[in-house]
């Protein structure tokens, strides 16, 4: 599976890709399109990515997560294009010998993804309007490391 893909994300594929008989635990995180955001009804959304960098960022994050938490397997996929309510925008799968490591590693992977992955989301609201969401400045911007996120742009 490509890490950045326009196709629906499949948890079974992710688990098959990470099968490992030495592992007693897996943790899968799924990020799902919700029907509301900051009090407004959401009808759907569109994700775009800067592809050349996004694939590399996810591959490196998988390796970093495995090394940092001593887990055997980590696989991350992120969807782009238009998504409806209830669809998965991101899946993270971690497999490890012990469950505590798997939970920590899974949380690290999704937390870090949100700081590093060049992906942007545009909300389509139920009132017909749309807007790019604010987010986290990447590491080389002047604002990198600022505590506040910027607001939505509409």
């Amino acid at each position: 599976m490509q890490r950045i893909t326009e196709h629906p994300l499949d948890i079974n594929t992710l688990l098959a890709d990470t099968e490992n008989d030495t592992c007693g635990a897996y943790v899968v995180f799924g990020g799902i399109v919700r029907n509301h955001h900051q009090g407004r009804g959401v009808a759907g959304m569109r994700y775009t990515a800067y592809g050349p960098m996004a694939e590399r960022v996810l591959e490196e994050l998988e390796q970093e997560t495995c090394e940092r938490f001593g887990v055997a397997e980590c696989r991350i996929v992120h969807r782009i294009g238009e998504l409806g309510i209830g669809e998965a925008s991101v899946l993270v799968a971690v497999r490890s010998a012990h469950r505590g490591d798997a939970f920590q590693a899974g949380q690290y992977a999704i937390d870090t993804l949100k700081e590093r992955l060049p992906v942007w989301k545009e909300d389509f609201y139920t009132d017909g309007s749309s807007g790019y969401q604010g987010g986290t400045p990447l590491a080389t911007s002047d604002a990198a490391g600022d505590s506040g996120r910027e607001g939505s742009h509409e």
Partner: protein
Amino acid sequence: MLDVEFYGVLQQLAGTRTLQIEVHDDAPTVEQVLERLRGDVPALSDHLPRVACAQGEHLVRRGDRVDPARPLVLLPPVSGGSHPLPAEAC
């Protein structure tokens, strides 16, 4: 000439995905290109402090020299995963 590519909200603000800008230096710094953009596309200027830049697969810093043979890519704050607010949210 240097190709500049926009992503996310920057596309909306610039009204285009790519822009060609004239550069007088053979290899200007990222900062110099952004300074030039600030003049050419005033709608972007409030956003530039939070913009990161890349060439190919890698981020480049403000002081780095730009390779004019490849596009300079402008990346606004990222919002992968699911909804990000409050800070703890996915």
